C-alpha cells in the first residue's frame, strides 16, 4: 500500500486558516490502513481544528466525509453535487488522491493533510517500512524476492558495497543491508548461483528518469 503520515497540525492550520467552510475528505484505502487519513483520522482532525478556531474566536464550518477512494473518477463524482459550498478541501488521501481531486474540481483549492511517504508494508501496528519504488521493471525473481532498488541505500544490483557490516548498512546502523537479506534468502532457497550471475545494467527509463509514466491497456479501454 501507499504509506502516508499526517502533517503536523501547525502546518495544516496554516494551509486552512483562511477558509470559512472547509471539507475534510478522507480515503478508505491505503491511508485508512496506515491510520493517517481514514474516517477516524478525519474525525479527530476535524475536532482538533474546530477547537483551534473556536479558541481563536474564528468562525469556520468544518464538515467531514470519507470516500471509498480518491484515485478513481467514480468515487470522486459522489461529491460533485456538494462540493461547491466549500471554499477549500483538506484531503487526507495520498498525493495521488489530492491531485486527482484537484484535476476534477479545478476551481476549489484541494490541500494535502498528509505527507505521502512510500509504498510499503505494515510490519506491526504503528510501524511501516518501504518495499518497492515502482521501478517499472521488477527484478525480484533474480534477487530472492528482496528488492535491491528500495532496500539497498545505493540501489546496487550486483552484491553489497564495501560498507555492509554485520548485516547492516553503512548509511545507518538501524537499516538492514538489503544485499545481506538477498544473499540470506538466496542461500535459503538454494539459489546462490543467481548471486554469481552478473546483473546487466538496469534500464532506468522505466523509472522516474524517463519522466512521468503511464500505463495504457488498449484491451481494457472503452
Amino acid at each position, binding site marked *: 500500500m501507499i504509506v502516508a503520515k499526517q502533517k503536523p*497540525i*501547525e502546518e495544516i492550520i496554516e494551509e486552512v486558516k483562511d477558509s470559512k467552510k472547509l471539507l475534510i475528505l478522507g480515503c478508505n484505502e491505503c491511508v485508512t490502513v496506515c491510520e493517517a487519513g481514514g474516517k*477516524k483520522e478525519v*474525525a*479527530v482532525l476535524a*475536532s*482538533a*481544528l*474546530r*477547537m*483551534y478556531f*473556536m*479558541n*481563536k*474566536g474564528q468562525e469556520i464550518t468544518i464538515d467531514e466525509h470519507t470516500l471509498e477512494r480518491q484515485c478513481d473518477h467514480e468515487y470522486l463524482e459522489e461529491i460533485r453535487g456538494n462540493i461547491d459550498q466549500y471554499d477549500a478541501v483538506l484531503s487526507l488521501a495520498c498525493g495521488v488522491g489530492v491531485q486527482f481531486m484537484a484535476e476534477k474540481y479545478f476551481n476549489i483549492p484541494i490541500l494535502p493533510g498528509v505527507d505521502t511517504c512510500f509504498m510499503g508494508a505494515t510490519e506491526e501496528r504503528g510501524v511501516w517500512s518501504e518495499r518497492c519504488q515502482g521501478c517499472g521493471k521488477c527484478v525480484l525473481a533474480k534477487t530472492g524476492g528482496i528488492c535491491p532498488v528500495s532496500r539497498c541505500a545505493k540501489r546496487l544490483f550486483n552484491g553489497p558495497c564495501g560498507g555492509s557490516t554485520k548485516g547492516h548498512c553503512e548509511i545507518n546502523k538501524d537499516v538492514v543491508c538489503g544485499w545481506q537479506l538477498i544473499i540470506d534468502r538466496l542461500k535459503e532457497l538454494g539459489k546462490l548461483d543467481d548471486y554469481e550471475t552478473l546483473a546487466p545494467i538496469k534500464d532506468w527509463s522505466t523509472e522516474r528518469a524517463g519522466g512521468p509514466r503511464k500505463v495504457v491497456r488498449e484491451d481494457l479501454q472503452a
Partner: protein
Amino acid sequence: MRLQYPENIRIVSIPCTGKVDLIHILRAFEKGADGVYVVGCLEGECRYIRGNLRARKRVEKAQAILESVGIGGERVQMYNLSSSEGPKFAEFATEMTEKIKGLGPNPIKLNKKKAA
C-alpha cells in the same frame, strides 16, 4: 462504603478503558468540558490484557493534540487503581477537580461567551 467526591464530575461508565477512543476525549472538549480523566485498572491487571495501556496512549495523544490547538494538554489525565480502592477514586476526583479549577474553564467556552 459511602464516599464524597466533587459533584461537578460527570461519570461515563465503560466496560474497559480500552474502549475510550481519542475522538471521545476530543469531543468532550469540543462540547465544552473543562477536563477529562480516565480511570482504569492497575497496569498489568487489565482483564483484556492491554485495554488500560491503550487508553494511556490515547490519553497521551489527546494531551498532545489539545496542547497544539491551545486548549492545554494538562486538562486530560490517566489514573489507575484497583477495583477495591474506592477511597482512591474519590481522591483522584478531588485532585483532578482542584487541578482544573487552577487551570480555569475550557478556553473555548470563554470565547463562545465573549462572542455571544
